[in-house]
C-alpha cells in the first residue's frame, strides 16, 4: 500500500526530444522538468503556446507519437510506478484505472457514430467485471453526478445531439467513472463559452473533492488558474520556470518571466477613458440578417442571425461587441464589411447608405472598412510573400507599385516589423507577428473603420497585450474607428470606449464601457461578468481585486 503522504504523480527530470531524421540535431521540446501532485490537489501547468505543457501531459499519459516525440531522460512515477518503463498493455490498464484525461475539444474526443452511453459503457466493459445491469446503473449514477439532466435520454443520445458543455460533461464522466487517482485536463474549457466554462470548472472541483483525485490541469488562461489552482507550475520554452502555491505565483512571483506573464493578463476593471466627441462615422440602424433553411420535407424555417441591431461608431472610438458563440457578433461584422449581404436595415458610412449598395457602388467604399480576422494562420495566403499581400489592396485601388511598396514598409514599421519582412513568407512568422502583418495590410488602405473580429483571441496573453497596445496606438495616431468583436470581457475592458452586449442576434445592453462593466443593467451581462474566471484577482497589481470605487 502506498504511503498516504506520497505524491500521486512525480515527474522527475523529464526530457522529451523531437525525433528528427537521422543525422539531424536532436531538439528538446521539454527539458529537465520536475513536479509532484498529491491526492486531492490541483496543479495548474500554465504557459504560452509552444511551452511544452501539452507534451508534458501526453508524456504522463504515454500518448506521445513514437515517430515524432521521444522521452529521452527522467522518470514519471504514478503511485510509484514508472510510466515511461511500462509495457503498452500495462499503460492501457493504467490509463483507465489510475489516470485519465479530458481533452480540449469534446466533439472530437467522442465517437460520432455511437451513443454516449455505449461509449461510457465501453470503459466499464473493458476494465471492470460488472454485469450489464450494474454497469448501466453505475453509468446513470455517474451521469447524474456530472449534473446532466434526464440521464436516461442522454444515455441514448449521440454526441451531435448534445451541446458543447454537455459533451464535455460526458468526457469527464468517462474519465472519472473508474475513479482514477490522477485526472489530466488539457485545456478542457478553452473551447467552451464562459458561462459553460464556469459550470465545468465547478464540476471538476466538486468531483475532485468527493473522489480525492489529483488533477493536472493544463491551461493558458490565468483567470482559470486563479479560479481552481492549489499550486501552479509555469512553463516557458520547454523548461519549468517556477512552481509554487497559487498565492506565491500570483502575488509574489520570483521569476521575471512569471511576473511578465501574470501582469499581461488583462483586468476586468475598465480603463478610465472619456467618450470620444468625434463625428459618428458609422451608423447602423435596424440591421437584420436572416438565413432561410430549406428542406425537402420540412417546412421552411428562418434563422435570425442578427435581429434589429442599431449602434453608432464615432471617429477615434473603439466599440466592443461582446457575446458568446452564436450571438451573431461575427455575422454583424461581416454584414457591415459587406462580406455577406444584410437582409434588412441600414448601415450608413458618413451618411452614405452601404447596406443596399450594389457591388459596383460598394467597391469604392470597401477600402474604408477593413477587417482583421481571428486566425492569424489562415488570414494570410501561404503562397504569397508578405509584401505582396500588403500591397495587394493598394494596387487594387490604383496606387503605383513603387508607392505601394514604400507605404508597405512604412506600415510594417508602424506594426513593429522590419523591412525585410516584405520578401518573406507567412510561415516564417509567429502568430502574433502574422496578426501584425494582417493589421498592416488592413491599414494600407487608410480605412475609416477597422473591424477586429476576435483579432486577439488566438494569441497568447503577452502577445495579446502587445497587439492591443498596437490597436490603441493606431487609433490615437490616425482617426480610425475600431469595431472590436470579442467573446472576452477582459479584453473588451482594456480597449473599448463603449460596449455592446449581444445575445441570440440581439443587443441586450449597450453603453459606456465603465457603465456596462461595473453597473450592468441586463441579467445576461451580469451572468457574463459573473462567469469571467479569476475576477477576484487583479493580475496587474499582483493582489486580490479591490472593491470597485463606484
Amino acid at each position: 500500500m502506498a504511503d498516504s503522504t506520497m505524491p500521486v504523480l512525480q515527474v522527475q527530470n523529464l526530457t522529451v526530444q523531437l525525433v528528427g531524421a537521422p543525422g539531424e540535431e536532436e531538439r528538446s521540446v521539454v527539458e529537465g522538468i520536475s513536479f509532484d501532485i498529491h491526492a486531492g490537489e490541483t496543479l495548474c501547468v500554465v504557459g504560452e503556446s509552444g511551452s511544452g505543457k501539452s507534451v508534458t501531459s501526453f508524456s504522463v499519459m504515454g500518448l506521445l507519437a513514437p515517430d515524432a516525440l521521444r522521452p529521452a531522460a527522467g522518470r514519471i512515477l504514478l503511485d510509484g510506478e514508472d510510466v515511461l518503463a511500462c509495457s503498452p498493455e500495462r499503460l492501457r490498464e493504467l490509463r483507465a484505472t489510475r489516470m485519465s484525461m479530458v481533452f480540449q475539444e469534446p466533439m472530437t474526443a467522442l465517437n460520432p457514430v455511437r451513443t454516449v452511453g455505449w461509449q461510457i459503457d465501453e470503459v466499464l466493459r473493458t476494465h471492470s467485471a460488472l454485469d450489464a445491469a450494474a454497469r448501466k446503473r453505475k453509468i446513470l449514477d455517474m451521469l447524474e453526478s456530472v449534473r446532466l439532466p434526464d440521464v436516461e435520454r442522454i444515455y441514448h443520445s449521440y454526441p451531435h445531439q448534445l451541446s458543447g458543455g454537455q459533451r464535455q460533461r460526458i468526457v469527464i464522466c468517462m474519465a472519472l467513472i473508474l475513479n482514477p487517482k490522477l485526472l489530466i485536463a488539457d485545456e478542457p474549457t478553452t473551447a467552451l463559452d464562459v458561462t459553460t466554462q464556469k459550470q465545468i470548472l465547478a464540476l471538476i472541483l466538486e468531483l475532485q473533492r468527493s473522489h480525492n483525485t489529483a488533477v493536472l490541469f493544463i491551461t493558458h488562461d490565468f483567470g482559470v488558474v486563479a479560479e481552481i489552482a492549489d499550486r501552479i507550475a509555469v512553463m516557458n520554452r520547454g523548461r519549468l520556470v517556477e512552481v509554487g502555491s497559487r498565492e506565491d505565483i500570483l502575488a509574489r512571483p520570483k521569476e521575471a518571466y512569471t511576473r511578465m506573464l501574470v501582469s499581461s493578463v488583462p483586468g476586468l476593471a475598465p480603463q478610465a477613458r472619456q467618450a470620444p466627441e468625434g463625428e459618428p462615422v458609422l451608423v447602423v440602424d435596424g440591421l437584420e440578417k436572416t438565413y432561410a433553411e430549406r428542406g425537402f420535407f420540412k417546412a421552411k424555417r428562418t434563422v435570425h442571425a442578427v435581429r434589429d441591431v442599431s449602434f453608432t461608431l464615432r471617429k477615434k472610438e473603439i466599440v466592443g461587441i461582446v457575446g458568446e458563440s452564436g450571438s451573431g457578433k461575427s455575422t454583424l461584422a461581416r454584414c457591415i464589411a459587406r462580406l455577406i449581404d444584410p437582409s434588412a436595415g441600414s448601415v450608413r458610412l458618413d451618411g452614405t447608405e452601404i447596406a443596399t449598395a450594389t457591388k459596383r457602388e460598394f467597391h469604392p467604399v470597401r477600402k474604408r472598412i477593413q477587417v482583421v480576422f481571428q486566425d492569424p494562420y489562415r488570414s494570410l495566403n501561404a503562397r504569397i510573400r508578405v509584401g505582396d499581400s500588403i500591397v495587394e489592396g493598394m494596387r487594387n485601388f490604383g496606387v503605383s507599385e513603387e508607392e505601394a511598396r514604400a507605404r508597405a514598409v512604412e506600415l510594417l514599421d508602424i506594426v513593429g516589423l522590419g523591412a525585410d519582412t516584405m520578401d518573406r513568407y507567412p510561415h516564417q512568422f509567429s502568430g502574433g507577428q502574422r496578426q501584425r502583418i494582417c493589421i498592416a495590410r488592413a491599414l494600407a488602405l487608410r480605412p475609416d473603420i477597422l473591424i477586429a473580429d476576435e483579432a486577439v483571441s488566438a494569441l497568447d496573453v503577452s502577445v495579446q497585450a502587445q497587439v492591443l497596445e498596437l490597436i490603441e496606438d493606431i487609433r490615437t495616431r490616425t482617426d480610425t474607428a475600431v469595431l472590436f468583436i470579442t467573446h472576452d470581457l477582459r479584453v473588451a475592458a482594456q480597449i473599448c470606449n463603449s460596449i455592446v452586449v449581444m445575445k441570440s442576434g440581439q443587443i441586450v445592453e449597450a453603453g459606456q464601457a465603465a457603465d456596462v462593466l461595473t453597473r450592468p443593467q441586463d441579467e445576461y451581462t451580469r451572468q457574463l461578468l459573473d462567469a469571467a474566471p479569476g475576477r477576484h484577482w487583479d493580475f496587474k497589481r499582483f493582489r486580490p481585486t479591490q472593491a470597485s470605487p463606484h
Partner: protein
Amino acid sequence: MSSSIHSMPGVAASAPALRRRPRSALVRTLSSWPVMAALVMLAVIVLAAIAANLLGLADPMAINPMQRLKGFSAEHWFGTDAYGRDVLSRVVHGARVSLMIGAGTAVAALVPGLVLGVIAGYFRAADMVIMRIMDGIMSVPSILLAIALVAVTGASLLTVLIAIAVPEFPRVVRLVRGLILSLRDEPYVEAAISLGTPTHTLMMRHLVPNTLAPLIVQGTFIFASAMLSEAVMSFLGVGMPPEFPSWGNVIAEGRMYFQIKPGLILLPGLFLALTVLSVNMLGDAMRDALDPKMARRI
C-alpha cells in the same frame, strides 16, 4: 476512456514545434528507395518510347510470314507474333501509344476540369447547371462511348483519348469545385475580397494556386488509369487500329496463341503493370509530400 484516446486528432499535431514542415519534404519523400525505383523505371520506359526508332529494333509493323511465332533468338529477343512481327519492337513502340494516351488524357481532363471546377465552385448560379451536366456526363460508360466514337469516326489515337478523357473530367470538376468551396471560406480569401481584389485576380492569385497540389496528384492517377483503359479498349477491339502497336493490341493478338507462346501476353502485360505501378507510386509519393495531413489518414 479508450475511445477518446483513439479518436484524438494526431498527437503530434499538438506539439507546435512539429507544425513547421521542412521545405525539402518533396525531395525527402522522392528520395526514398521505392520511389526512386519507380522514377528510374518510368524514366527508362519514357526514354525507350522516345528513342524507339534509334534503338535499332525491327520495324514493329513489318509482317514476315516466314518468321511466325518464333521463340527467343539473337535476331528477335522476345520472339515474333502470329504475323512474324518482332514482339520486343512492338512492345517498345507500344509504350509510345500508352504514354501518349496517359499524358494526353491527364491534360485533357485536368484543364477543362480546373476551369469548370473553379467556375462551379465560385459562382453559385453556374454551380447548379455545371454540376448537373457533369452528372450526366459521368453516367456515360467509357467503353460505350468508345464504341460509338469508333463507329462514327473510326479507330484512332484521338478517338481513344476522347473516349477516356470525357467520362474522367467531371471527376476533376468535382474535386476542384470542392476545393474552391472550402477555400472561399478561408479568411485570407475574405481578406482579399475586403481589400477590393477583383474576381479574376482573386481566382488566379488566391484560389487556383491553392488547388494545384491535389490536382497534380489527381493527374498522376488519371495518367495511370488511362493507360489501363486504353489497354482494355484495344483488347476489346474498340481502341487503337489493330495494326498499330499498342500494349492492348499486342495483348489482344497474343491471346489466341497464349497456350503455345505465353510471352506474347506476358511481356506487354509486364510493361503495362510496371508503368502503371510506377506512375501510381509517384502519385502517392507526391500526395504524401504535398499534403502531409492526408498521408497520415490514408
